[in-house]
């Protein structure tokens, strides 16, 4: 009993001392985890990975309960970025893993970080993908309440495409910039305001709902407006998702002012747009060097059953997408296509020298224009104009400075607004919106990833293997034996 008592008392004393020590260490660590006492130094010479003060502050200002979900799953074997033994994805994932830790630390626990990789339970990955409507190429989801920002591969990384059987290579990233932007967007009170003109919609107004939701989930303040905003309104972007009639005089005046002021514009017309309305826009957009053409664009369409049909419901494949433009780079990379309906083509005209224009979606020579809108035959004849056709043209000022001022996206079709929940449209629309608002800013915040490739020769390899597997351990064991022998004497 006495021995037990002694042991008990000693044990209790020891435990008490241990607990006191533990409490001290926990308090110390807690204090040192506070932002004002926590320091992180990025010494990496090749590609700094730490988030900038701007991004750190933006993350710290995010609301409590925000989430960051990173999808670092195994890339598809069909992805060209995996060809020829390319390590683009592993390298990108390495950067993102560090970023994930940075997000967690710099947000001071406000952002719950979740890395879903090949080691995560597939059920969980699938559940998160379903919840977020994840599509291939979407790497980071930053969420604050209902608001959400999606960072895609192409927004985060710059690569050299695989050419001549040379693997693709990651040459820079802008993870810090993109994360900072996203965090700022989600965390700040003022969101970019987008006016979606619903006065002359070619489809029922309620069909616009999903698109407005998409914009809201991307962190924008979007609203459907019945009349076009005037010069005094502080909208950041005007979207016209189709126009089935001419504008009223006041709206026409507002449109003219909007274009003259070089404010960002997403104009989608279609074969349903009457000629006067189209003419009006062609006049306004003449300095940009693009004009809508009359007639419905059709193309042979091979359906899932293998049957070929001619239709005005056409698909632009990845071959018809600009690989280097911020809007379509991802889609091109992922070899996706975009469906267009009731589409009209655009002509590139001689515009002002102030503007640059670039076709980002086009159709090849198999497309044609149905001249008769009212009685289409869906059969090309010798008289019908043949492709290639420009379907979506992006214009911007050469001297573009702040944000997306001067940017306009002219689309020959508006059908993809109706069903933005479909993956292709969703990605296209959100990329387009971002580009129009100047959020791509691909030139800034780029961090060069100076990769250090090493392909040893056979002789070098043998030397490495011999020294690291045989010589070093062997010499150590030999030295141990020598010590043993020397000490025994």
């Amino acid at each position: 009993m006495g021995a037990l008592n002694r042991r008990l008392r000693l044990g209790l004393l020891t435990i008490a001392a241990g607990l006191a020590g533990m409490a001290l260490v926990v308090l110390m660590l807690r204090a040192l985890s506070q932002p004002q006492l926590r320091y992180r130094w990025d010494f990496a010479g090749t590609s700094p990975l730490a988030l900038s003060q701007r991004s750190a502050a933006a993350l710290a200002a995010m609301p409590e309960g925000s989430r960051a979900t990173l999808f670092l799953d195994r890339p598809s074997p069909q992805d060209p970025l995996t060809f020829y033994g390319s390590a683009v994805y592993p390298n990108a994932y390495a950067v993102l893993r560090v970023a994930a830790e940075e997000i967690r630390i710099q947000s001071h626990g406000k952002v719950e970080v979740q890395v879903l990789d090949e080691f995560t339970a597939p059920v969980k990955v699938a559940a998160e993908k379903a919840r977020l409507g994840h599509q291939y190429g979407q790497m980071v989801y930053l969420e604050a309440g209902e608001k959400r920002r999606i960072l895609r591969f192409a927004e985060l990384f710059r690569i050299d495409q695989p050419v001549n059987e040379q693997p693709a290579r990651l040459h820079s990233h802008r993870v810090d910039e993109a994360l900072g932007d996203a965090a700022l967007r989600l965390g700040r009170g003022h969101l970019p305001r987008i006016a979606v003109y619903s006065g002359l919609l070619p489809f029922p107004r309620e069909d616009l709902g999903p698109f407005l939701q998409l914009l809201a989930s991307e962190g924008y303040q979007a609203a459907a407006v019945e009349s076009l905003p005037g010069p005094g309104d502080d909208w950041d972007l005007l979207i016209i998702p189709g126009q089935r009639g001419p504008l009223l005089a006041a709206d026409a005046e507002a449109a003219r002012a909007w274009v003259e002021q070089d404010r960002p514009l997403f104009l989608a017309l279609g074969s349903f747009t009457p000629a006067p309305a189209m003419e009006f826009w062609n006049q306004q957009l003449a300095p940009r060097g693009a004009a809508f053409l009359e007639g419905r664009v059709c193309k042979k369409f091979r359906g899932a059953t293998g049957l070929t049909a001619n239709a005005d419901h056409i698909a632009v494949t990845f071959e018809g997408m600009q690989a280097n433009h911020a809007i379509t780079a991802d889609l091109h990379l992922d070899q996706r296509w975009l469906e267009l309906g009731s589409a009209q083509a655009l002509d590139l005209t001689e515009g002002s020298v102030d503007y640059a224009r670039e076709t980002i979606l086009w159709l090849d020579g198999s497309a044609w224009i149905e001249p008769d809108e009212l009685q289409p035959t869906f059969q090309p004849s010798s008289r019908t104009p043949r492709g290639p056709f420009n379907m979506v043209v992006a214009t911007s000022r050469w001297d573009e400075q702040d944000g997306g001022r001067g940017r306009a996206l002219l689309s020959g079709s508006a059908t993809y607004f109706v069903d933005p929940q479909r993956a292709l449209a969703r990605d296209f629309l959100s990329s387009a919106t971002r580009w129009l608002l100047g959020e791509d800013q691909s030139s800034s915040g780029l961090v060069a990833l100076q990769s250090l490739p090493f392909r040893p020769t056979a002789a070098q390899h043998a030397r490495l293997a011999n020294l690291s597997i045989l010589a070093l351990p062997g010499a150590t064991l030999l030295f141990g034996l020598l010590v043993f022998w020397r000490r025994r004497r």
Partner: protein
Amino acid sequence: MIRVDRLHKRFGAVQAVRDLSFEVPPGEILGFLGPNGAGKTTTLRILSGFLPPSSGAAAVAGHDLTQASIQARRATGYLPESFVAPPELRVGEYLRFRAGLKAVPGARRRRRVAEVTEMLGLGPRLRQPFSALSKGFRQRVGLADALLADPPALLLDEPFGGLDPLQRQEFRELLRGLAHDHRKAVLFSSHVLPEVEELADRVLVIDEGRALALGSREELLSRLDQAPRQRLRISGDGAALGRKLPEAFPGLEVLACDGGELLLQLADAGQRGALFRWFACRGEEVLAFHPDTPTLEDLFRVLVAGAPGAPEEAA
């Protein structure tokens, strides 16, 4: 100077040391005598600073063991009962390390190691690993370790264990020299009575953690000598006559009887002549008759085993 004052040590229900008090002044060797489990090692471990006392105080060279443990340890050379050194070290390496640990100045360290090893005959063994040494040499290494810092007090727990007779003799002389010539206070424990008897200036007998007697050999034995004992050998059967003796001589006791040999405790010295006459009357020839000189063994037996004639507890 080693000073122990009302020392108690309890391990749960077991009272290993009870109310122990003694002093070892400089220049004295105190033999700590007691059976196995008497509390000798526990007391030495307390004095070495390895264990804390449950109560009471102990000091070495004026340094209290609980208040100034490091200083007290610096003043102490301690040889544990089963001394072991790290097997991977050679004797010289180990002693140099211990000299450093005991803050022997760097310049003196090698010289001091050489002196001590020379003194203990360890010179030829300096390059041998400790694990290759015999028990006797290991013990010497332990003693060398205890002596390295030239401490004023030495605590040696069973220092003669494993030594051959010649080594014991050398060891005794060495300790005597250290105590008497170098004025060190030496406290050593042993349960080998002749060792203690031969070496100790004073003896502390301990059993069940309690001090039973403390004093010089003569002082302790004088307590046994209060009643004279005679060893007597007769030609006939001692047993039969031995039974009649107490009736004939009031106060006389027969302590032992083995054939014709009798060990008697006389009531007084005047009974000697009467005894001769008594045996002569019964036709018995007294072959030998001499006083029986008591030894520490007798004292130990008396004290520890509670044999008759045990003196009052001393301390």
